[in-house]
């Protein structure tokens, strides 16, 4: 697991961008953390790395937002941004078929996905947490955060060294 600290929103975006450089078509990235921890901010940095210029907003009420990449990269054509916060049952999760979305030229970010992590197979987990020592307002976007990154499965084990190197400057 990597332990990182983002001193600002720009750092959060940069960490997301570095991870985006290493994802492949078919990947699922679970975003964990409380309200205001920076899950959507992470998704925004991730989308920017793929040159998505549409505004990336929280999909809490729409469940999944899909963004076509202006320039497909490494087989990735679409970034799907899901939020399972409102789901109550596993059948609703199955209905979303996030794995199918990933499989077909997609990368899927899943906010609150840690609760159903067992259903995802190989995936990357990004846990975000506010830095309690930052005096900025609790819901302020531009605040310091702790970010932990963990990989599950062989596909991430193979990329781990590169991921570690690219995030070295944020290590804490």
């Amino acid at each position, binding site marked *: 697991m990597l332990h990182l600290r983002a001193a600002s929103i720009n750092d959060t975006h940069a960490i997301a961008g570095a991870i985006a450089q290493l994802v492949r078509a078919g990947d699922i990235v679970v975003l964990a953390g409380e309200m205001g921890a920076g899950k959507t901010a992470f998704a925004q940095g991730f989308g920017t790395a793929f040159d998505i210029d549409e505004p990336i907003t929280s999909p809490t009420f729409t469940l999944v937002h899909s963004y076509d990449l202006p320039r497909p990269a490494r087989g990735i054509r679409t970034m799907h941004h899901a939020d399972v916060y409102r789901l*109550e*049952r*596993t059948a609703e999760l199955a209905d979303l078929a996030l794995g*199918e*979305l990933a499989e077909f030229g997609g990368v899927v970010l899943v906010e609150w996905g840690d*609760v*159903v992590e067992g259903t995802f197979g190989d995936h990357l987990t990004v846990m975000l947490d506010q830095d309690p020592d930052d005096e900025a307002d609790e819901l302020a976007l531009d605040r310091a955060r702790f970010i932990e990154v963990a990989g599950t499965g062989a596909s991430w084990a193979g990329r781990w060294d590169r991921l570690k190197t690219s995030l070295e400057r944020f290590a804490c």
Partner: protein
Amino acid sequence: MLILGIETATERVSVSVGGHEGVIGLFEVTKGRRHAETLVPAIDFVCKRAGIELSEISVVAVDVGPGLFTGMRVGLSAAKAIAQALSVPMIGISSLDLLAFPCRHTDRVVVPVIDARKGEVFYAMYRQVPGGIQQVAEPAVGPVEDLVADLMARSQDVLVVGDGAVRYREEILEGFHCEMGGDAHPSAGQLVQLAHARALREEWVQPREIEPVYLRAPDAKINWATRAART
């Protein structure tokens, strides 16, 4: 009686119109998996080319799965919307029936196998009967090894068809000697033919009664207790 058939349970998008004269229009694309973008223009194309107004359709038939969730929700919602708007009944047919139906002239046991992802397959078994086919083993979902074990247990002459058979060809043949062939994907052409036979017997339902067949893990409550912060 004209039937509109909508098939999106696998990577293929297939639309057909037909009736007592058989299939009179068929559009299929089996690459790209853009169900949502392809389906409605395809319906428009088939109807226009066949010189049919949507208002002439008297039954909407749809493949209810099992298969791709992302495909089925596009096909089922479009089919239901059209049926409701036209105030016509619907006929839902299983993707496994549709794969087995074209093989009705063989005396082997026909085993349609659909790729269920993550190393699993949907499958069922059928036998020729006068005038068609009959299911002899209930649809199941499981790892490819379960399918092979089922085939071995029956140890009959078998014809295996479907995209699951294509994907897991080696694994299946290693475990059980059988014939592979037939169609990799269900077709709306078969759907219209099967639905026509049922429509003649008025075996149709209202749109609200059509449900997808997922054949997946039983539903359970998501354990949000592990995330007390949500409440």
